């Protein structure tokens, strides 16, 4: 059976690397059965670099794999990513952004419907808030631009993958720094887990390694709302 197993590749945003490595282990998939290659998470701020970055990896690696999953949302590429994936017979995760598939489409829509001025953070974005948001937007050099960037935002929504009080406090601090309200939602791995699980099952990759026992903690619901 293992000799017949397909070789699959995930090309992912660096912001999802840790989560995908965790899920791969958790689903009991051997590293060599599902290879992970990442692009810099900084592309989050420069979406025009995503499709060329993915294409470079596809050019090099597509022929070596039976199936390729691109762990990006549409991510502001203006359709360029989807056009590219058709060309290379690859597929991506559903939704516009990573925070959408972490939250799940319905919950994401509900949050945005309730408050259109929602600025989303995930575990990765909280951990790297200073590098990706503060430095990425130039707020370290020009803090006065904060109001220019965030004028229309009302709240920071932290879609937490893991329960981590230190990260939660850091996210609250980020909201305060941006002078926004704070909403905490423990969403787990959301559709990333669902999609990845479906992918490995379709490819028969499950059980190629020892399966993690913490499965049911992947989706969960906790919520706090703080006005800063």
């Amino acid at each position, binding site marked *: 059976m293992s000799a017949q197993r397909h070789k699959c590749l995930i090309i992912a945003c660096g912001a999802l690397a840790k989560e995908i490595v965790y899920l791969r282990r958790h689903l009991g998939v051997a590293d060599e059965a599902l290879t992970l290659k990442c692009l810099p998470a900084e592309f989050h701020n420069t*979406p*025009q670099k995503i499709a060329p970055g993915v294409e470079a990896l596809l050019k090099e690696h597509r022929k070596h794999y039976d199936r390729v999953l691109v762990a990006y949302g*549409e*991510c*502001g*590429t*203006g*359709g360029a990513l989807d056009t590219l994936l058709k060309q290379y017979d690859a597929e991506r995760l559903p939704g*516009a952004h990573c925070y959408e598939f972490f939250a799940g489409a319905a919950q994401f829509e509900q949050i*945005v419907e309730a408050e*259109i*001025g929602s600025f989303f953070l995930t575990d990765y974005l909280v951990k790297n808030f200073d590098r990706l948001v503060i430095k990425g*937007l*130039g*707020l370290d*050099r*020009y803090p*006065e*631009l904060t109001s*220019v*960037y965030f*004028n*229309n*935002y009302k709240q920071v929504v932290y879609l937490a993958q893991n329960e981590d009080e230190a990260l939660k406090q850091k996210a609250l601090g980020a909201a305060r720094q941006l002078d926004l309200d704070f909403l905490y939602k423990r969403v787990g791995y959301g559709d990333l887990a669902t999609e990845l699980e479906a992918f490995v099952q379709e490819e028969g990759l499950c059980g190629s390694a020892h399966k993690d026992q913490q499965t049911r903690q992947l989706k969960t619901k906790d919520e706090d709302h703080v006005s800063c």
Partner: protein
Amino acid sequence: MSDEEDIILRDLNDNDLVDQIKDDLYDGLKDEVFEGVEILLERKWEANLILSDVLVEAMRIVGIDFRDGILFVPEVLQCAGAMKGGMGQLRPILAASDAQTSVGKFVIGTVKGDIHDIGKNLVGMMLEGAGFEVIDLGINNPVENYLAAIDEHKPDILGMSALLTTTMPYMGLVIEELDKRNILKELPVMVGGAPLNQEFADAINAHSYGRDAAMSAEMARTIIGKNS
């Protein structure tokens, strides 16, 4: 472009002062641009000449360097802030001047579901600099807002902006509605925003695609026959 020695703006002749204001705007030095404009006004320069030959011209260079990857968003926003300061001095003079007539009316707004307005505001500023009367509808505009503004202001051009891949299709919906009401054949519609491209603008039947703020203002003048 900053020099180590302090430059006394009042000591410069007109040509050097104009060059210095352009340099200062490029460097995002709001106070210096403000002072430079003040000196030119004291020297009896016409407000519309200061606007077009100094501020807009400097911002045009900023736009080119942004397009070419020399300047980045935070720097462009600093430049825009400096230009805004200079324009703030000129606006009341231009408004009070009998000689100053608008070259046309431009209604602009970010589409429904989208709260991003940095690009739209830059375009609005460049349009104003190019002599347009700009009616800014702000963010998150449903089709009804555009229709009401068209009815009220009778614009020469309608501009729509979107930053999100999820909201840009709404532009097509507005254009369809304008077509149904026989407004489209009389009213050119310009679209713009980071994820857009010419292909998308063509697909939704927009009159033009504004790639950046400076180019949008140039195109707008061409559309109303002021660039021949």
